[in-house]
């Protein structure tokens, strides 16, 4: 098939061929012609103009009414041509915005990056996937000189850029807390003051902070209104909700957070998550928390990192590969 030119003679020949043969080939070439025209930003009124001229060439005796009617059609197409041009320019703007956001997103990645530490006798799995480009979830590992492991997991109510900005603030506030004050309740209390002072009251941040001490094999934790995690008791082969009370960050300046603790036995797991995990949706139905545990249980034989990845894959597929909320899941397992 010949390559198509956008010129009049070509169009005229195609039109002639079609009028004579009513042939599908000519129609296919008309389709090619139309695609090529769009690529070259030819507006519909120009195509109609080419059509009028081709008609005049082919039928010099064209009735006057037909010619006027074609001019009428041309006039009627002008606004469509404009709308098409506007669409093109809006699409370019959209691309520019997208690339700007992706620059911001990769900057956020750099700012909030956290290294999964090696802790003796402890297996760690962590995954955090944003629903959009910017992540409104946050998790961070802190390893002190005395080998204690701190884990922060937080969620800004809301998604996208404002949430991401608020998260960067949390991260830097945490960095400035002195090492000797790394108790979960202390951390939440100082972050609460930062949030209360700096964040708009309409924005809520929930956070769970846990500290594992390999010395006494205990897990210390506090929660600021965060989605409750789960504890897997290996001896009884049972999951239970990690109960921790506390209001979300930033409500009042002097909020106190209660600190809890529990002994971690070999094979036990601590599961921390955000509501993007527990509020996965299948169609219009929210999943039950048990479904998360079922999936964890089914993959429990895997190493911790593989385990969290499998859980994510399961719910990603369940939601037709379209996350509605940021998804963060951390699992600690004490080695047997």
């Amino acid at each position, binding site marked *: 098939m010949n390559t198509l030119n956008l010129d009049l003679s070509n169009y005229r020949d195609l039109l002639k061929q079609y009028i004579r043969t009513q042939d599908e080939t000519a129609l296919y070439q008309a389709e090619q012609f139309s695609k090529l025209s769009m690529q070259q930003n030819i507006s519909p009124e*120009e195509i109609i*103009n080419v059509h009028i001229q081709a008609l005049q060439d082919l039928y010099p005796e064209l009735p006057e009414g037909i010619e006027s009617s074609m001019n009428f059609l041309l*006039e009627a197409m*002008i*606004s469509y041509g*404009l709308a098409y041009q506007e669409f093109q*320019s809006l699409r370019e703007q959209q691309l520019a915005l997208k690339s700007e956001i992706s620059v911001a997103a990769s900057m956020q990645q750099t700012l909030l990056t956290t290294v999964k530490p090696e802790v003796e006798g402890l297996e760690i799995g962590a995954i955090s996937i944003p629903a959009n480009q910017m992540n409104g979830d946050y998790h961070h590992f802190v390893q002190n000189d005395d080998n204690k492991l701190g884990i922060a997991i937080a969620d800004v109510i809301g998604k996208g850029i404002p949430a991401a900005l608020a998260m960067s603030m949390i991260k830097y506030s945490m960095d400035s807390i002195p090492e000797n004050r790394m108790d979960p309740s202390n951390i939440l209390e100082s972050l609460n003051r930062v949030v209360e002072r700096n964040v708009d009251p309409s924005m809520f941040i929930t956070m769970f902070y846990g500290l594992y001490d390999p010395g006494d094999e205990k897990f210390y934790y506090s929660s600021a209104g965060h989605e409750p995690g789960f504890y897997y008791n290996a001896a009884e082969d049972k999951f239970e909700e990690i109960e921790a009370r506390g209001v979300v960050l930033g409500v009042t300046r002097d909020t106190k957070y209660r600190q809890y603790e529990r002994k971690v036995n070999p094979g036990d797991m601590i599961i921390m998550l955000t509501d993007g995990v527990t509020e996965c949706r299948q169609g219009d139905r929210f999943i039950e928390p048990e479904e998360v545990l079922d999936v964890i249980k089914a993959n429990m034989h895997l190493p911790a990192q593989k385990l969290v990845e499998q859980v994510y894959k399961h719910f990603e597929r369940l939601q037709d590969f379209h996350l509605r909320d940021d998804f963060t899941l951390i699992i600690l397992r004490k080695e047997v």
Partner: protein
Amino acid sequence: MDFQSCVNINKEWDIVGARQIGRDFARKIGFGTVDQARIATAISELARNIYLYAGTGKICFETIEEIDRKGLVILAMDDGPGIAEISKVMEDGYSTSGGLGAGLPGVKRLMDEFDIISEQEKGTKIKAVKWVR
């Protein structure tokens, strides 16, 4: 500038009159059918803006001739409230989102040159030029 022809815009019907005179000008200057239709559409947009936002104003036409080219100047003038944020009305999607038409960005696209001066409480003056290709 001494304009050859002006149309007062006071009522919606005057938009048609402005289009007619503009099209006659365009034809005489030598614009083809497509460009005539584009010029008429630009005139519609300018006249409708006057009618909707200023109430009254006028649209004037003039032929310009340079050594190597010929064109049409359209001037739209009103003493209306003026446009507070010109950059806003020149943004794509600003006026079209309400389905009101092509708006001023449309006029800019239909013509080759476009200039706008507007002062609040004093009025707006838009000059648009199209050259014969």
